[in-house]
C-alpha cells in the first residue's frame, strides 16, 4: 500500500517536472488559433477552385455521354437504312430474276447420289 502511494507520488512528481519543462516552450494560444484561422481562410479560398474542377469534370462527362448517345443513334439509323435498301434490292431480284437456261436441270439425276 505504501509502495503504491510512493509510486503514485513519484509519478506525479515526474509529470510535474514534465509540465514545467513543456510549459516553458509551448506555443501561445493566440498563435495556434491564428494559424487555424489562416488555414480556414485558405480552405475557403480553395473551395471555389474545387467546385470549378468538379463542375468541369461533370460537364465533360455529360458532354461525352451526349456524344456517345448521338453516335449510337445515328449508327442505328444508318444500319436500319442499309438493311431496308438491301431488302428492297433483294425483293426486286427475287421478283424479276429468271434462270437464263435449264441446262442445270438436265445434268442432275435425282435418283443417283450427287457427286462430292
Amino acid at each position, binding site marked *: 500500500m505504501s509502495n503504491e502511494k*510512493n509510486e503514485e507520488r*513519484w*509519478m*506525479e512528481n515526474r509529470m510535474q*517536472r514534465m509540465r514545467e519543462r513543456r510549459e516553458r*516552450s509551448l506555443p501561445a494560444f493566440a498563435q*495556434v*488559433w491564428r494559424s487555424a484561422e489562416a*488555414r*480556414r481562410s485558405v480552405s475557403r479560398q480553395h473551395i471555389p477552385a474545387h467546385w470549378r474542377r468538379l463542375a468541369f469534370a461533370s460537364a465533360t462527362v455529360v458532354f461525352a455521354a451526349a456524344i456517345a448517345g448521338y453516335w449510337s443513334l445515328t449508327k442505328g439509323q444508318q444500319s436500319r437504312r442499309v438493311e431496308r435498301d438491301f431488302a428492297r434490292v433483294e425483293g426486286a431480284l427475287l421478283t424479276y430474276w429468271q434462270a437464263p437456261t435449264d441446262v442445270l436441270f438436265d445434268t442432275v439425276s435425282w435418283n443417283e447420289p450427287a457427286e462430292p
Partner: protein
Amino acid sequence: MDPFESEAQLAQLGALHKESFSWALTCCGGNWSDAQDVLQTVYLHILEKRARFGGQSEFKTWLFSVIRNCAAKEMRRQMIRRVFLLRHEDEQAPPSGGMVPGASLEMAEFQNAFEQALNKLPRRQREVLHLVFYEGLTIRAAAQVMGVSLGAARQHYERGKSKLREQFGSQVEEPEHEQ
C-alpha cells in the same frame, strides 16, 4: 460561430490551451510539430463547427476527446503515408525546455529518460497515465476521454505503471526528495 458561443468557447479554449497542447503532445507520441498540427486542426474543426460541444460532458473532457480523435486520425494518415511512400521521417524531438532552475544535470537526464520511456509506452497506457498523473483526472474520467470502459482504462493504467516500474526499478518506490 455565434458571437456568444464563440466568446465563451474561445475563453475556455484559451484557458485550457496548455493542457490541450500537452495532451496533443502525448497523443502524438511526443512529436512537437505533429502536436501543433493536431491542435490547429482541432481549433479549425471548432471554427468550422465540425466539432461541437453538446454539453453532455465537461468541456475539457469533450475537448480532450476531440484532440485524441484528431491525433489518432493524423497518426493513421502518417502510417499510411509511410507504408505507401516508404519514406521514413525522423521523429522530431520536442524542443528541450532546458533545465529547471536548481535541477542537476543528472536529474535532467533522468527526466529525459522518463519522458522517452513514457512516449514509448503503447498509446492507451501512455494516455491514461498522462490523464491521471499529468491532468489529475480520475481513472473514470480518463476512460470517458479515451472512449473505453472503466475496466479497460484501469488495466491500461496498471500495465503502464508496471512497465515504468520495470524500467526505473527502485527509484519508483523510494520516496523522492524535492530538490
